[in-house]
């Protein structure tokens, strides 16, 4: 299973997402498109309580070195923990994560 796209800076090695023209770390224009393996760790999590029910919003640190907002699916929102290892999947519309 593959994960989200990101860029790697050809000069300083920074992992960059979302897509940019220049590296936000060193200013280089030598950025190459990459696809993450989709493995990561939950950096933080919140459960949003809405009329239609509770859902979680997480920030995931991908192993390649960038962070993205997403949702951990397949478990109760309040059971999602910081530090939990997760794997990216696709729910048909967006990249989501499952515990692994």
């Amino acid at each position, binding site marked *: 299973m593959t994960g989200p796209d990101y860029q790697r800076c050809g000069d300083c090695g920074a992992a960059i997402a979302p897509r940019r023209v220049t590296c936000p770390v060193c200013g280089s224009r030598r950025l190459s498109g990459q696809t993450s393996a989709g493995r990561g760790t939950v*950096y*933080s999590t*919140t459960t*949003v*309580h809405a009329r239609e029910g509770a859902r979680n*919003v997480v920030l995931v640190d991908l192993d390649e070195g960038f962070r993205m*907002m997403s949702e951990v699916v397949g478990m109760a929102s309040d059971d999602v923990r910081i530090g939990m290892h997760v794997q990216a999947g696709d729910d048909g*519309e967006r990249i989501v994560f499952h515990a692994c």
Partner: protein
Amino acid sequence: MPADRLRGAVAVAGVAESRLGEVGPGVTPLELIGEAAAGALEDAGLSKNDVDGLFTASAYYGLPTVNVGEELGIRPRYSDSTNLGGASFVSHLLHAAAAIHAGLCEVALIVYASTQRSDGGKLKSVVEVNPQEAPYRPRYPVSMFALAAARHMHEFGTTRDQLAEVAVAARAWARLTPNAFERGPLTIADVLASRMVSSPLTVRDCCLVTDGGGAVVVTSTQRARSLRRAPVVLLGAGEAHWHRAIAQMPDLTTTAAVDSGARAFAMAGVGPADVDVVQLYDAFTINPILFLEDLGFCAKGDGGPFVAGGAIAPGGRLAVNTNGGGLSYTHPGMLGIFLIVEAVRQLRGEAGERQRPGAEIALVHGNGGALSAQATAILGTLAAS
């Protein structure tokens, strides 16, 4: 030119608020801006024709200083609509000092208003949709601050009780403030038992939604000495931003207040121990905890214990948000201007029951976006300058 040349160069000569709370349908933000501006100019003993520098930010108007200039009949030669969200107005203090010191204007009016509550209680905002965030439906902005709170709890053992302490302290101050929006008793248990919005933050961890406006008149300290009120001198100010979206924030437990605060303290030549009264943008209860750490009032990670036991409430070790802040006093979309107004009232000794006796130096800190933009100012009495 070293920034410390701005130390003491300008002073706040007048402040005022418009009607606050709920003004009812049909009142526009420009009307509240008119009320606040007229009040601040009267306070200073100046007229709108004295104003040649205009500063505002807005979620309503695309060219906000232009709208305000037309409304008030002010034709500025210096116009600044810098939008750092809720940090805008503290930032405007710094920008006004630079403009006045450079001779680009002489009397600056910083003004803001919103009718957010009467507009239906939604956060009126020109914030763009972020395509990286939209698919996951965070509740903006509370979920972003909830993510920061959760991470702070994870790293440092900060507790929900400690978050609630911030709301309880704000309410205790508001109970000493006659025109505060929420003045009923509030306990830690009340905060924890209230409706969860975005965990770990309940509705009582979130700021109010009100109407209201505020205005601040700034001029050279030399000119301010000849005006009606005792000048409140700008000793130092700084601003900083590192990210816009919460996923781009390098460390959710450390804000750019580290930089804005260091810049303000360096310019002022004072440190946290010298500050008598502190006004921090408390959009959510995690904010004052983060800012007390980042501004150097306690070590990183110690903000929870620092606020515990009523330590920032009336009679505590540090007077924080002495009118009740955004959590209990007022919060019309952006708070920054009201932080300045309250600091000035404390330094003039006119804060009534909530007055911090002998206050000489105040720190004001504004926050904008998702813990994104930070602006800090240090104000003092003439004696402290």
